[in-house]
């Protein structure tokens, strides 16, 4: 219990000096409300015997995001992000108070998925944004429908897989000498996932397409651990990747830039090359907050925010952030292990995979571990939809841990 309290205090304190440094901006009030909301949420979770280590890890990441974005500015953008932060906090509390038992959410299994797919569909006629038109303009703010989609998909997958896992595991079909999983039971899953993938590919939102595929295959494997299910997921992925490379010039460019960003560092390779230069400039301890030039990297507030972290806080900063992500993921999967009902078990896994796969895809793209596909960095990047949905996911995970009393059962 002491560890949980100390953890949350350290986490919210990370962002503490930032409003003071940027004097003259009404940020301190936001920070006070956010910090109080997080500490109270942690108190609620600990008193109700939930996981005491889940919220501190995420709060630490969110505080790092506030520091980095606060340093990058401009004030107008930080103000909007702070408003979103409080909306996110509202969702976290909403999930904590209303989403118990979590199985209650399963009533809207297909409604949620259909609504989220519909929102994504709306971006075809109405989408805003340069290049990939991924946003919906609601007058006073934009939303990015792919963010609610990933949450809806996690809920749908958990409900469907919890109901069918035994069929998926045991039903087999013989094809000559081969024993294949019976594909009949995979069809509804394939349809929802396929539709989402198709939409995202048509949108050229490659990062989100990769995320949906990763989460779908990962959770199928978690529910019914047959190696064939992994292969079943990897084959379409490989076909899509090869097809994308041959037919889509954007994919081709991404691969070439990934293989050698220095072939054209002023043009196509500019973003990746600048990111590598910035990370190198950061070294072990960073240049110091406010002393680097992360603003030279395109999209440094959103997809490439990790680069700003690496330049000014150095390897220590990025390693710390990765450590916090790993703790967060470990808590999700542990929650999945300890949950007693099938739905709760799989919901913890699908939500954890959503956070984990997204973090992996964008961080690996940033540091040239794999071709870059755009996604936000959970809890750190600028972006209202992303922040709100990630806080909702966090709220659901916390509610699950309270329902399953995992804190009491581990005795920490």
């Amino acid at each position: 219990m002491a560890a949980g309290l100390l953890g949350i205090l350290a986490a919210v304190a990370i962002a503490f000096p930032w409003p003071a440094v940027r004097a003259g901006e009404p940020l301190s009030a936001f920070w006070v409300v956010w910090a109080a909301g997080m500490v109270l949420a942690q108190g609620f979770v600990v008193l109700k015997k939930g996981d005491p280590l889940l919220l501190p890890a995420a709060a630490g990441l969110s505080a790092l995001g506030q520091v980095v974005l606060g340093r990058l500015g401009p004030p107008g953008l930080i103000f909007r992000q702070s408003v979103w932060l409080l909306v996110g906090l509202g969702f976290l509390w909403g999930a904590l108070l209303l989403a118990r038992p979590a199985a209650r959410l399963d009533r809207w299994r297909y409604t949620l998925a259909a609504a989220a797919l519909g929102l994504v569909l709306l971006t075809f006629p109405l989408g805003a944004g340069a290049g990939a038109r991924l946003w919906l303009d609601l007058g006073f703010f934009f939303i990015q429908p792919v963010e609610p989609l990933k949450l809806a998909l996690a809920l749908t997958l958990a409900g469907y897989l919890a109901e069918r896992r035994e069929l998926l595991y045991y039903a087999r079909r013989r094809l000559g000498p081969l024993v294949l999983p019976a594909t009949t039971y995979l069809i509804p899953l394939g349809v929802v996932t396929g539709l989402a993938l198709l939409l995202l590919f048509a949108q050229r939102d490659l990062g989100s397409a990769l995320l949906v595929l990763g989460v779908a295959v990962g959770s199928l494997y978690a529910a019914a651990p047959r190696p064939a299910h992994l292969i079943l997921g990897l084959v379409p992925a490989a076909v899509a990747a090869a097809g994308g490379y041959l037919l889509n010039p954007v994919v081709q460019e991404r691969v070439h830039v990934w293989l050698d960003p220095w072939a054209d560092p002023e043009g196509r390779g500019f973003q990746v090359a600048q990111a590598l230069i910035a990370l190198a400039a950061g070294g072990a301890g960073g240049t110091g907050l406010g002393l680097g030039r992360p603003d030279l990297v395109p999209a440094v507030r959103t997809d490439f925010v990790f680069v700003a972290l690496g330049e000014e806080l150095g390897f220590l900063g990025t390693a710390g952030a990765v450590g916090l992500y790993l703790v967060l993921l470990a808590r999700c999967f542990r929650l999945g292990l300890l949950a007693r009902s099938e739905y709760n078990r799989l919901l913890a896994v699908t939500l954890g995979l959503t956070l984990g796969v997204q973090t992996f895809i964008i961080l690996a793209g940033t540091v040239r571990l794999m071709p870059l596909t755009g996604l936000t960095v959970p809890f750190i990047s600028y972006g209202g939809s992303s922040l709100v949905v990630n806080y909702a996911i966090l709220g659901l995970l916390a509610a699950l841990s309270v329902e399953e009393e995992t804190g009491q059962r581990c005795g920490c």
Partner: protein
Amino acid sequence: MSPELAWWLNLWVLGLVYILLGVLLRGIYAETRRLAGPGETGRGRLVVVEPAESGLLPGEAFPLPPEATVGRDRSNDICLPDPSVSLRHARLYYRGWSWWVEDLNSTNGTFINGRRLERPGVVLPGDRLAFGQVVTRLEVKG
């Protein structure tokens, strides 16, 4: 931003990030130690909390072999002679540094802390493990 202020800011942010990580990892370590118990074999026992109509006494304990069956029948490793317990009710086994319990299609179900099991689940030290009406508690010797 003066270099001096930037240095202090970095120290504050990085210092707190690593304090936080330290607290979290220490929590995970303590929890793992607690759950793992003393050695590789789980030296556990099952203590009767609510005997129902089994004729057992509260506090009576069954030492657990690495794998044990629980049921009303005398042939089980742990015999709970209560009408709400099925003849062959559940299986308790030690795997991956944890105790697991699997319900063997019993009539009245197996419960961890009041929640009916749908598939094999991890039982942690101190958990209330109920077979039908008979409530027990898992204890691991430290």
